[in-house]
């Protein structure tokens, strides 16, 4: 059995909010995740990271590319085979307030996927649901309660329990702690880390928060305007980035120790619209190292040391 669990190649998703307007939300995204690995996907809001995550889960249909999950082709799967793949990869959402059906009891939310996939029914399903709740740190008495009776952090735990109900191999966590209070963020992160180790889960961890990704992930990919600009081990990419954009992201982050604070970098301009991306390297209008060829020739993502980078400086 191969060590690679998820392999994404050339994923692309364009939106057409109006006629003759094309938003290139995800232009060309490739990465792979090993079994049990925590892989981070970072970038500013609007860079396409959430769209990429949803496209590989087929929550939205990608326009091009291939996604292989444990040997199965995700993008061509239909009907029963798609359902079987869905069981093996689950998602945890950012907003705990909209991720649970307000009219469904917690017990219902946890047992429904078991019933749909024929894993368990009736009393057996309820027993499993109670165990899941305990696993995420909630009392089994919560089974008969409704979502509005829980706090944001508690709801996020329920959302995690629901994702575990199908015993998946991969969890896509889309900004799982961004909507939570800082005090609750740490608890939920610890829970995720604990589950990852205990169940051997792989994670695709989508976040804009570099410190959270640094703590949780082993590898990370940095996205900019629908493309991955740099990829590699988390410590190396976030400490000594090769791509000027990754460096900018790092420098924009507050450092707790005043002694280590660098001068705030010059940030030129804002992210261009994904509806009208610049030619060549998408980052060149904001890049301090921009060269003439950057505005004409898009750099390819090339392997470099233990990762990959898409920049003419490192071509």
């Amino acid at each position: 059995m191969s060590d690679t669990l998820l392999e994404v190649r050339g994923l692309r998703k364009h939106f057409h909010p109006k006629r003759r307007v094309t938003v290139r939300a995800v232009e060309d995204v490739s990465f792979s995740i090993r079994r049990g690995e925590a892989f981070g996907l970072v970038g500013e809001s609007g860079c396409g990271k959430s769209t990429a995550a949803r496209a590989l889960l087929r929550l939205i249909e990608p326009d091009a590319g291939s996604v292989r999950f444990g040997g199965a082709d995700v993008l061509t799967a239909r009907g029963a085979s798609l359902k079987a793949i869905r069981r093996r990869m689950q998602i945890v959402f950012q907003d705990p307030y909209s991720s649970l059906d307000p009219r469904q009891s917690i017990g219902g939310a946890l047992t429904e996927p078991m019933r749909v996939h024929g894993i368990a029914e009736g009393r057996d399903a309820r027993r499993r649901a109670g165990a899941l709740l305990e696993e995420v740190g909630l009392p089994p008495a919560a089974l008969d309660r409704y979502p509005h009776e829980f706090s944001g952090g508690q709801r996020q735990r329920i959302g995690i329990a629901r994702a575990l109900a199908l015993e998946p191999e991969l969890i896509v966590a889309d900004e799982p702690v961004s909507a939570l209070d800082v005090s609750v963020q740490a608890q939920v992160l610890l829970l995720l880390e604990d589950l990852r180790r205990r169940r051997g889960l792989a994670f695709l961890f989508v976040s804009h928060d570099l410190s959270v990704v640094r703590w949780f992930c082993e590898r990370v990919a940095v996205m900019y305007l629908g493309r991955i600009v740099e990829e590699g081990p988390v410590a190396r990419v976030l400490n000594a980035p090769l791509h000027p954009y990754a460096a900018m992201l790092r420098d924009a982050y507050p450092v707790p120790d005043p002694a280590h604070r660098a001068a705030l970098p010059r940030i030129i301009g804002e992210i261009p619209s994904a509806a009208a991306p610049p030619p060549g390297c998408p980052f060149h209008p904001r890049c301090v190292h921009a060269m003439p060829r950057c505005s004409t020739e898009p750099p390819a993502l090339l392997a470099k040391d233990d990762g990959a980078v898409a920049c003419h400086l490192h071509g």
Partner: protein
Amino acid sequence: MSTAAEVELAPTRPSGLKRALARARGNPTTLAGAIITLLIVAGAVLAPWIAPFDPTEQNIIDRLQSPGGDYLLGTDQFGRDVFSRLLYGARISLVVSLGAIAAAMVTGGTIGMVSGYIGGRFDLITMQVMDVLLSFPSLILGLMVVALLGPELENLVIAIALTAIAPFARIARAPTLVLKERAFIEAGRAMGFSHLRILFAHILPNILSEVLVMGSLWMATAVRVEASLSFIGLGVKPPTATWGGMTRDGFENILDAPWLAVFPGLAILLLVLGLNMIGDGLRDATDPKLRNE
């Protein structure tokens, strides 16, 4: 590391609909409306036991009797007891409107929900059709349909249901558009739920209260349209008592016996008013904008 630290749960709170109902109960308008409506419903249900006379039996000797005396509300041009006819007429009003609203709620609600869920061009075309239906005055549409199908009870139900489908489609579609963007619908898809399951097990329960409130508001309209059609002569055929038909008969004898038009007219007014009062209170109670007052 212990993550299974017991997290304390807040005490149980009632759900949204229950709170809305509790608020509506505290509203004097709703309460008054409920009392009026219940009295009329009770009269209709108990008609065979409380009606003093047979509603269709003619008694020419006692024709056009004034209210009071042997006949509580007088008699009509055939000597039939107006009060008894009103009790039986309530049955037609209630059965036709309930049937029509139930039918409109199911078809219109399903159309709106499915159309909003599918979205895109399908939704655009469906809603265009609904707009066309909506822009047609309900009385004219009902009138045409009954005229063409024939004045039978079930045709009245169909005609009135047809006039109410578009508003139910709209009221069901709007929250569906919001709901389908919520993460729990996406979660359902990620867990491999079928579209049918998502529609009927997850979206439907969340839009039901809005559709039901709309139903109570449209009940009033349905009663009014049924009465209007009967008044024009397109209601359930005589000698069956209908409020609109009785008003029409009374209107034709308005110089000799004005009460003949006044009482059935009042009955229609009261039922419509009662239903409107209930619907009004329910809507206020479920309207999120009015909640935090």
